Each structure stands twice: as C-alpha cells, then as structure tokens.
C-alpha cells in the first residue's frame, strides 16, 4: 500500500506553507523530510495525518485507526506515568488485557524504557519522552506512521533506539514518513524529500539526489564569494552552480548537508538577484 499527498497546496492566510507538493510513502520504507524552519515539513506531515486541510490537491491516507502520528510537541501527558500514557492511547484503539500487556512490554523493551515504566512523563529526559511518544504512536501497529522530528534534541544513544524502532516498523510493512533536522540521519532513509519554503527542492534516494546534483563544491579557509559559502568544521565550503570553480581550488564530494545548503543558497541567491 502506498500513501501520498499529491499536488498539495496549503495556505495560512497569505503564507503559502506548501506549494504543489507531491510525496509518496510506500509501505515497508522510511521516507525522510528535511528542510529548515518554515520549509513546510510539519505542514506536509500534518496534511498527510489529516490534521490540516489542503487548499488544493489530494491526500491518500488510511482511516484514523490505522494511522500513527507523533507531533512535534511531546505527544504525552506529563502527569501520567509511562505505562499510563501507553495504556490510555492503546485503550482508544481497543487494545486491552493480555494483548496490551504483551505489546506494552515488547515496545518498552525495544525503546529501552522498561526501567522508566512507572515514572511520570514529566520526569523523563527529552530523549526518553520522544521515545515514549514514538511508542504511543506505534502501539496499535499503524499502516502509516508519521513522525514529526522524533530525534530533535535527543542524545545520540536514544537516537539509535529511535532509528531502530522506525526501521523495525518499516521492516514489518508500515509506511513511515519522518522529518528531521539531522541530515546524516536523513541519508539513511530509502527516499528523502528536501523542502525549502513550501516547495520540493529535490527528492529521491540519497544516491539519486547526489547523482542529480549539478555544480561543484570546493573547500577553502577563505571563500571566493561569501554569499555562496558556508562553514564546515574549520573550513568553508563553496558552491559553484555552473560547475566552474577557479583553478587552484580544492573540490570535495558533497554530502547531503552540502547539497541541501547549496540548493537552498541557489534558490535564495536567485530570488535576491
């Protein structure tokens, strides 16, 4: 089963949050959405989750009982314990008794949350709270799982747990759409969508995105054109859209972070001139 938003446009007043965006989410794979603040990531996810109405376009999503959604906000109740949070959400989906107990134990174990089962959500670390939100989104084995920045502010160790949970959900057939600000993480997805100011800059597998990237990226202590350069560690990278860096510059193989920055700069510099 493939879920999708097609030619979707969403406006908030005069702001166009999504502009003619088409994204497909096939079962069995993880699709990652990346982009900056205001790129439209959350709007895209909320459109697919049925949380925001389209001004134009189509949404193909399963009925609510087969959908799991982790919003960008915590997604759990602070005063309830980890177990109570899970049981409450499971109850909405009619999960109870031994079936619930078994499912809860399995998910707590996979998320490394078993020792925290009796703790109120308010007393969890940021990483644990995101994992709890994830467990709550997935407890009813949804066909479509939508995760809004599950790993933001989460430490590297908990992030590994979250990726394992997401890849296990996909491996068991779910369609997973997640947004992230960590580009190294997006490289892991089967398919990635780069949004910028409501539009799709580029989408495809990481290999496709790399192969389709036009132009050259160079590395130097001091860039030639500051408006086309960005910091990478101690040095600066610089984008040459026409693929014509001057002699004497050092070319580098761009990774996803370079590609996203280069394409965003190209769009911004084009708008400006």
């Amino acid at each position: 089963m493939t879920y999708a938003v097609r030619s979707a446009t969403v406006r908030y007043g005069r702001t166009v949050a999504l502009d003619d965006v088409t994204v497909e989410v096939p079962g069995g794979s993880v699709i990652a959405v990346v982009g900056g603040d205001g790129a439209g990531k959350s709007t895209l996810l909320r459109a697919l989750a049925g949380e925001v109405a389209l001004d134009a376009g189509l949404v193909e999503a399963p009925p609510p009982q087969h959908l799991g959604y982790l919003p960008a906000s915590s997604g759990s109740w602070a005063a309830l314990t980890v177990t109570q949070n899970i049981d409450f959400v499971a109850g909405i989906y009619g999960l109870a008794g031994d079936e619930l107990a078994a499912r809860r134990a399995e998910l707590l174990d996979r998320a490394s949350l078993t020792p925290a089962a009796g703790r109120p959500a308010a007393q969890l670390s940021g990483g644990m709270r995101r994992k709890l939100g994830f467990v709550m989104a997935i407890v009813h084995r949804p066909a479509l799982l939508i995760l809004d920045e599950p790993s933001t502010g989460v430490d590297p160790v908990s992030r590994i747990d979250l990726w394992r949970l997401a890849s296990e959900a996909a491996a068991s057939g779910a369609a997973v759409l997640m947004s992230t600000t960590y580009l190294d993480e997006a490289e892991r997805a089967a398919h990635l969508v780069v949004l910028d100011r409501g539009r799709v800059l580029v989408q495809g597998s990481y290999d496709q995105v790399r192969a389709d990237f036009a132009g050259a990226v160079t590395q130097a202590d001091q860039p030639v054109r500051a408006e086309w350069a960005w910091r990478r560690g101690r040095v600066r990278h610089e984008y040459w859209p026409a693929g014509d860096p001057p002699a004497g510059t050092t070319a580098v193989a761009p990774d996803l972070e370079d590609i996203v920055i280069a394409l965003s700069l190209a769009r911004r510099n084009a708008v400006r001139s």
Partner: protein
Amino acid sequence: MTGVLLRAGHVTRRFGAFTAVDDVSMRVQPGEVVGLLGANGAGKTTLIRMLLGLLAVTSGRVDLLGGPPDRERRRRLGYVPQGLGLYGDLTVRENLSFSARAYGAAEPALPPALQDYAGVLVRELPLGAQRQVAFLAALAHSSEVLVLDEPTSGVDVLARTDLWDTIRAQADRGAGVLVTTHYMQEAQQCDRLLLMSDGRLVGEGSEADIIGSTTAVAVRTADWARAFAALAAAGAPVMLAGRAIRVADADPAELAEVLSAAGIEASLQPVPATIEERMLMLARQAEAS
C-alpha cells in the same frame, strides 16, 4: 588564575543518594571552544549549573573568572540555556532590551534574518529564530565566557552554520566558550572535547582521544533494514551511518555468523569508531553496572 576563565576542581554533586556529577575537573581558557558531550542524564547540565553558580557543589571547587561564581562575575558571562531563557509574551525587541538593561549593555542591532520579527512575540517565532534571539541576548554584553547548552538543537542547517560562525567569532576575540551538542558534526568544530558518562568525565582532548580504543565494523548490504533487525535482535550495538550498518566493539566473525544465519549477504570491514559509538558503548557499560 591567568589564562583560565572557567574551572572545576574535583566537583561532585549529589541529589539524595544519586550522584549526578562525580569528581569532575575541567577548565576553559580564553579563545577556545570546548565541546561538552554525553548522553541525556550524563550530568552535563548539572555541571554547567554549578559552573555558573546556579547550583551549589556538594564537594569540590568552581572558579568563574578567577573566583566564586557570584552575581558580579556572572555579569561577565553569557549563558544560553536549553530552554533559551526568553520571555514568550514579550516581543523580540522587548526581550533584547530587557536583557541588555539587566546587564547594563547597549541593545544589540538585529541581524537581517531577525529584522522582520522585531515586533513579534517570541513564543510565535520558529524555534531557529528563537535561538538566534537567545544568542543575541547572551552576546550583547561582550561576555568573556559563553556557556551554550545545545545551542543548535532543532535549528535548520543554514542557521546552524551561521550560529557556528558567531561562536567562532566570539572565541577569536578572546572569549572562552563551553558548548554542549548532540550533533557530532558540531563536536568536530570544537578545539577540545570533554565526554561525560554517568556523572564522570571519561574522556578529554581531540576526537581521537575521546574515541580511544573503541573500534567498529561496517556492514554493507543491499538489505540494510533486515540486516539491522537481525543484528539488533542478536544484541549487537548496531547503528546506522548513511545506509551502512555499523557495529561498535564487535567481532566481525560473530556478526558474519548472525547475518548468514538470517540469509543476508553482506560485506564486513573494520573501520575507525566514531564519538557516537564510544557513547553507545559507555551507555551499555553504565546500564550493565
């Protein structure tokens, strides 16, 4: 005290029976950016709160700018907490003039990215813009020491490179910077790293010093999702880098056995470990003990 802006000497903090920070010594000198790494709960924020004088030490000693971290010395320091410390019900401009007046400094000019937001309530701003405002507020009074707790969490990639330009510029003019991050690519931008686990300082120095003797195996396969599940089910400390699977501190022969039992074809290759893998191994050790 010449040359040291921030110093902890054998600092310990207990909460009841729980030791949050255990005998930590560290320092920050002028012109350097020191990265403080560790999983959630490792003790980073507790250590920072003691360094700033916001929390008393149980034992040990803290020096800020050559003495105890009192109000006078705290004036000469810029701090961006994880929660940002802004007033959501005030506008950007109001927040900046409030903090400038509290420190007796001139109100900072707004950079181009924030100019459209001058009259907007902070709680209505995107997170990236809120972080930029918190930075501006902390930098407005030319601090000698900057302490930044996850300054770029949730910030998009372009804004993140801008924030790092700002951090480096502060170090270049002589400030000492202590910064926590969960983004390992940012750790590589620091001059020196400190790694905490379970309240203790377990590594210090360059990336290579932090990684120490931890090793890793890279597993390449067309079917990463299944290979990942099989290795995780076997209890291996797996993680992903790109779409290659990596396993920290593992024996390649054992991994090959697990994969072939699951009917997955893969190539295995020993590779240098990453900081994240070192952290994963430390977390596993802490859990086991």
